[in-house]
């Protein structure tokens, strides 16, 4: 394969898909008009609105691709893509259910027990059950395989000890899927072995959750401390020792979606509302440039979805999309900021100034969460044959 031949196949929107797109747009327009939500920058990561999540559940827009017997709606991954991109573009507050719907539910569907699927999946699909990610630790960020938290086999289950960090929303989430060490060591040689994943009820014994306030003022991150926290045998997800393989495929789902380039898109819409329908040359150029970027990003992201839907595992294409897309989120905010050069952001409270200041304060996390851009470029470089 030539180095440059990454594939981003085209997706044609069927009339049904377009009808769904319009249905979501109509819903969002009426919700926004009636005060059902206020647009928010980075709403999939920081916009927590439990009531809004429940509304989406009632509409059938959570757990969309899952079997009906588990509360899902047996719709295609493209239908899910359409719904999620509309929510993101409109700046909807979809953070509460995001992780559960995107990755924890699919993970349980694959690796959970029948009882877990019957109990938990319908609640996620209803927008009533939320999940936190348990990957990073205080000493393990990009180098995830160096993690220290352990699960030790005891009678009837496992005892978990250690600390998970970031775990967004853990203070309101019901469960965490944690990747921990059940064997092996942190040594260079076999560090990817001996990792396992567990379903952990965050209301269970031996668990303490402490908030970590971020620089944007959000009470969003947490440190979750496990002190002999007991989980029963059926909470081991998948196979003991297979955690590394499982967690990397979970990251694949994390990296390819429209949330990797649309986090700050609402700010451009709000800036255009201020500018009106007759922009000057400078304004027109900034708008045009960013729309051109958005269109290309979306095409690439849809291409990755097409590959996923075809049963492929486009790890490299997903890494490319996330690297370009998250850089774009940051560039867009800086361009949008300068569209209205006299605004003291943070002082004004209209939707432009508010979403822009939220976006600027939150965007440093874009190029870090879900794999830093440096890690992603390493993945691309390997594919290019450089390492």
């Amino acid at each position, binding site marked *: 394969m030539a180095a440059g031949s990454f594939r981003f196949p085209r997706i044609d929107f069927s009339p049904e898909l377009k009808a769904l797109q*319009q249905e979501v747009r109509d819903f969002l327009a009426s919700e926004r008009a009636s005060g059902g939500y206020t647009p928010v920058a980075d709403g999939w990561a920081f916009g927590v609105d439990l009531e809004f999540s429940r509304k989406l559940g009632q509409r059938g827009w959570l757990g969309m691709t899952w079997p009906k017997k588990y509360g899902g709606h047996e719709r295609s991954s493209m239908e899910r893509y359409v719904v999620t991109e509309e929510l993101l573009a409109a700046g909807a507050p979809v953070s509460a259910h995001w992780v559960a719907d995107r990755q924890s539910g699919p993970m349980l569907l694959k690796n959970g027990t029948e009882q877990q699927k019957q109990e938990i999946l319908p609640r996620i699909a209803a927008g009533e059950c939320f999940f936190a990610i348990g990957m990073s630790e205080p000493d393990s960020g990009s180098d995830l395989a160096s993690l220290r938290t352990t699960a030790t086999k005891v009678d009837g289950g496992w005892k978990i000890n250690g600390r998970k960090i970031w775990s967004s929303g853990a203070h309101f989430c019901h469960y965490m899927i944690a990747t921990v060490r059940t064997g092996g060591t942190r040594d260079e040689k076999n560090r990817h072995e001996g990792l396992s994943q567990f379903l952990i009820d965050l209301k269970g014994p031996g668990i303490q959750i402490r908030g970590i306030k971020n620089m944007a003022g959000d009470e969003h991150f947490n440190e979750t401390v496990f002190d002999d926290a007991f989980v029963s045998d059926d909470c081991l997800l998948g196979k003991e020792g297979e955690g590394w393989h499982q967690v990397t495929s979970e990251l694949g789902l994390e990296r390819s979606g429209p949330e990797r380039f649309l986090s700050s898109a609402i700010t451009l819409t709000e800036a255009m509302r201020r500018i009106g*329908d007759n922009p000057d040359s400078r304004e027109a150029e900034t708008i045009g440039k960013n729309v051109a*970027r*958005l269109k290309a990003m979306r095409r690439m992201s849809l291409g990755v979805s097409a590959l996923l839907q075809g049963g492929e595992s486009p790890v490299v294409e997903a890494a*490319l999309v996330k690297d370009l897309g998250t850089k774009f989120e940051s560039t867009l905010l800086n361009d949008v900021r300068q569209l209205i050069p006299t605004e003291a952001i943070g002082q004004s409270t209209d939707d432009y100034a508010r979403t822009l200041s939220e976006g600027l304060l939150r965007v440093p996390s874009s190029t870090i969460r879900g794999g830093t851009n440096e890690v*992603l*470029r390493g993945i691309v470089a390997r594919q290019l044959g*450089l390492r």
Partner: protein
Amino acid sequence: MSSDENLIVDAAARIFGDLVSPSLINDAEAGIWPSELWAMLEESGLTLAWGNETLGGAGIEVIDGFSLLREAGRHSVPVPLAETMLASWLLGHAGVQYPAGPMTVAPTKINSNISLGPDGILSGTVRDIPFARVTEHIAVLADSEAGKVIALVKTSDCALREKKSIAGEPSDEVSFDGVKPVNVEPAPYGLDEQALFAMGAATRAVQIAGGLQKILDQSVQYSVERSQFGRPIAKFQAIQHGLAQLAGEAAAAGAAADAVAEAIAASGGLGVEARAEVAAAKTRIGEAATVGTAIAHQTHGAMGFTYEHSLHHATRRIWAWRDEFGNESYWAMELGRMIAAEGADNLWPFIAGKE
């Protein structure tokens, strides 16, 4: 992509691979016409890929023609293939029979004032006509009292002042004063300078996307072969990250090129929707051109700055194409105005489509 695409691109890639060597490209810059290459392309019907079959063209799907141009862009093909295809596209709209031999188009800018008098004689002078001096005919879009016309003109009837693009390719000034066209037909509704300019921009955008693929391949190969500090420079993380970003820009350009080719194939290239797609593609691909060529040159170090190394065959063409038929600033403004006129709430439907 149509089912014929692979056949056409494969045929073209074989010809380019066999004949378009670095020395042939350098010779072309020195003014030596690559006659064997042109003859092969013409015999295969590729030069009239976009030509209507009833007028002597090859009748290849529009979208496959774009794939051919991407491949030509990848190989820095130093003949007016894109220009001849563009000319046949223009002539086809007026039902003008295609001549043999290389062609180009005029004007390549907006507001250029070429006009056809009531006596059937052309007037007007235009700049930056690619490859004019090596062509036999020029397809001209001109004003007349009866509206826009499409004229086929013999290049030898025109007065040329030879100039070069920054790629070292002919980009001549052409005077049509006193020239009687070989053939004139009225242009169909909607085919004006803006439409020709947009089709030219789409052509250049797709060629750049091909060129970016080439410089990515070259840069990867160079970094693996070149050793410094006792190891291939590909092993340095700074190089790896640069090339990963170049790969991202090349991929984004490829995605934008696919999008514009599909839009023009679906619409014929005239009309506001196709125009918006052209604007988006030329803008995004122009940006990729800037970022991508800088990384490629940085990776190649001083070697890539020599005339002897072939990197500049692609990078200089990318830079010329980036500015021809409107650069990213021009098209971004066009796109921004188009979108703003529809209002903020139509921004997202513009990007993601609607019912």
